[in-house]
């Protein structure tokens, strides 16, 4: 596998050459600082660009074209990493060496028509596509509530710090949706093309020089030099002095527990190496402290787990329980976090989680998307290269974990309370 990066000015081009896959994957990422009021319109843009284009004016025609290109898969989405909102397009196509004809240039034609020749007539997006996407987004925003675990997590983050990007609802907001028009969407599109930072990733068994030439030609619409607008990683502005608890009720069968913990003043070594291991030991797998205590010993839950988000400086814990067991579950979680603070966990647990990380680094090579992710984070979050990552993980000691655990503060508990046990 060969990785090369070219800083062209208007965009960065990353080429990963590997003969492992029969596909070629192309990712185009636009990024800018996340602004709460822009989340909805950015989602709208993401959806409408892959809904239709000037040449393929309905979704059906656009999808027919994709199928004609041997089932080319094109998807788009918006996601937040730390302070940034990414608008990302991902294309997967069969490598042209398996078919007759120049599939690569045809696919690039298709991708760039969608990105640069959208369904805009006189500075307005096509009304019909607009109407369809508006319905989709409205349902998507509303249906956050249909996913209880996700909903509880967002309510927890809002309770913790409403103003922090960590509490933004990335599905968007109905009030903002109402303000979007075919014409202001067009202005937003133009500003994205003009001012967003752009990264292009190409992975597959490709000719590096050929890709460079193609990209230069196909992405010439991206031509303004951009400046980096600021840091990715979020530093918490609001530090809760005391643990706060909030409960909401809903007519559901299970109560969803969500807990947020803030991290403060962690070093690079801690955030990249110690914290992932801490998270694994606490609640990252079927051998974790929480799994063993809350599920296996006490039989309170089916799922219980923790997640660490480096760019958000955040550790979250979630579980589904009976509401009668709410206090007991929170107490058990606190006990396990205290055990980590005291260093009350086995060397074996630490070694196992290191093995897990090292294995994950290795089998990530089996998937185009995880290889691209790796280089994405090396560039975005200043991740070390693989060899260095392996080395650093193996250096983490029990004392490192103890020291770090004192910088983790449980800040907010939230319960979406369902029916009582016997109902």
């Amino acid at each position, binding site marked *: 596998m060969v990785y090369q990066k070219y800083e062209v000015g208007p965009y960065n081009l990353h080429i990963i050459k590997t003969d492992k896959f029969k596909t070629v994957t192309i990712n185009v990422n636009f990024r800018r600082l996340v602004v709460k009021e822009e989340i909805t319109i950015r989602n709208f843009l993401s959806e409408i660009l892959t809904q239709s284009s000037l040449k393929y004016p309905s979704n059906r025609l656009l999808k027919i074209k994709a199928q004609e290109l041997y089932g080319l898969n094109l998807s788009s989405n918006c996601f937040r990493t730390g302070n940034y909102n990414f608008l990302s397009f991902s294309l997967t196509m069969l490598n042209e060496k398996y078919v007759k004809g120049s599939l690569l240039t045809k696919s690039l034609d298709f991708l760039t028509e969608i990105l640069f020749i959208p369904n805009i007539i006189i500075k307005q997006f096509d009304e019909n596509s607009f109407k369809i996407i508006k319905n989709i987004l409205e349902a998507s925003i509303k249906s*956050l509530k249909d996913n209880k675990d996700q909903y509880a997590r967002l309510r927890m983050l809002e309770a913790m710090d409403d103003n922090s990007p960590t509490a933004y609802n990335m599905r968007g907001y109905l009030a903002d949706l109402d303000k979007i028009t075919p014409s202001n969407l067009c202005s937003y599109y133009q500003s994205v093309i003009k001012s967003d930072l752009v990264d292009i990733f190409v992975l597959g068994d490709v000719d590096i020089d050929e890709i460079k030439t193609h990209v230069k030609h196909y992405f010439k619409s991206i031509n303004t030099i951009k400046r980096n607008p600021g840091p990715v990683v979020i530093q918490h502005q609001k530090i809760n002095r005391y643990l706060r608890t909030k409960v909401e009720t809903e007519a559901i069968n*299970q109560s969803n527990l969500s807990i947020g913990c803030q991290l403060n003043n962690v070093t690079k070594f801690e955030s990249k190496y110690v914290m992932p291991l801490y998270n694994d030991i606490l609640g990252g797998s079927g051998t974790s402290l929480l799994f063993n205590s809350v599920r296996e010993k006490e039989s309170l839950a089916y799922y219980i787990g923790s997640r660490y988000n480096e760019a958000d400086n955040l550790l979250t814990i979630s579980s*589904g329980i009976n509401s009668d067991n709410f206090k007991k579950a929170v107490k058990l979680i606190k006990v396990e976090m205290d055990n980590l603070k005291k260093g009350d966990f086995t060397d074996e647990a630490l*070694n196992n989680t290191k093995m897990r990380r090292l294995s994950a680094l290795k089998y990530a090579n089996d998937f185009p998307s995880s290889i691209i992710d790796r280089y994405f984070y090396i560039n975005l979050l200043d991740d070390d290269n693989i060899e260095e990552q392996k080395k650093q993980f193996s250096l983490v000691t029990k004392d490192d974990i103890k020291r770090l655990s004192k910088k983790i503060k449980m800040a907010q508990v939230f319960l979406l309370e369902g029916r009582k046990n016997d109902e």
Partner: protein
Amino acid sequence: MMNKLVIKGTNQNIYYERLTNGLEVYLAPNEKQEAFYVTYSTKYGSVHNEFVPLGAKKYCKFPEGIAHFLEHKLFEQESGLDPFSFFAKSGTIANANTSFFKTSYLFYGVNDFEANLNYLLDYVSKPYLTDKNVEKEKGIIEQELRMYDDMPFWVLVGGLKKNAFHHHPIKQNIAGSLKSIKAITKEDLLTCYNTFYHPSNMILIITGNFSKEKALDLIKKKHSATKTSPLPKIKLKKYSEPNTVVKERLEKQMAVEVPKVALGIKIPLTKLKDFDLKVINLYLGLLGNILFGSTSKFLAEMVEKGYIIGDLSSNRILVDNYFFAQIGAESNQPSQLIMAIKKYLNGFKVNKKDFERIKKVFISSYYLTFDDILAVNNKLLSNIINYNKLYLNEIDLLKDLNKEELDKIIKLLDLNQVSTCIITPKKNK
């Protein structure tokens, strides 16, 4: 001796052997990948609830959800070292799952292949059941069931099956109900275990990066030490299922914001006896894609009218003498959508261009499957479970698909037995 088989049109070889005790072993190495993926499965799923237990003479009925319960319990080991902990030592990911027709135990990783394989074969052969640990599991599974009960699409599909089938246990939830799991005992679990977890009812499939010689050596050594001869065929209860559905319409209220709708079509196979089951399934997949997929005119029309938000999803399962096809969507006009789909099912035409284009996509995605060791493992397993056959020539079957034959099949399809399920938002309390 292992038989070497080749999956036509690919570089993927499969080495197959049936051991003297009846275990079927399939090894499909792929050295381009880093990881190995191992599944060890028994042909025992949630629908196998009534059978003649090993050593008994009469049919016996067990509580719903028992296969899934047993899957949970195999993670408890007498030594105290549970499977998750063992696999964790080498950074290997382990899991298990129960579906309608099978239960699988699996691991996925890059280190200590042989030790892990040895352990997998070991722990699945050693159930450790006590009254106390069986009781303990009930609390965990209760929470699992409650979680599913809050997932609208889960509830939707559950409702469809229940309304479509009169007798066949496919109508039950895989994990059972709060009531049924309470009735499960240690003795029940052991009876099921002894009947279904014999090597002659099991399949071991390994895909990815590993040495086939070492794998087979180890498997043989392991199995020669244990149960040696295959058991007689397990007597499973047969169900005579009428073609009709139980109930045409079910409406439920849940704490959701966006209404959801699904249709289940119970398609009898009686008139399709001349066709191979797999071929029928390929045609139905193709037809589902043409009628309801992203390039269907019908979908575009429904979206335009505001009957569908986003996409339609469609899939199907093979249930004895039926294919049960399911179509689902989010919709603000669920009743109108149901009417439109029913009408469409009775008067659609397939055009040749759509057929050829989507066939080409199917062929291309078939080739791509072989980049992914999980997908290859699942493909082999589902072919064995559903058809008791590998279909090494699947690529020829795909290439031979033709519109004339599809038209012939369409004429023989009965698409009139439809059950529907709608989930609407609960009114304010």
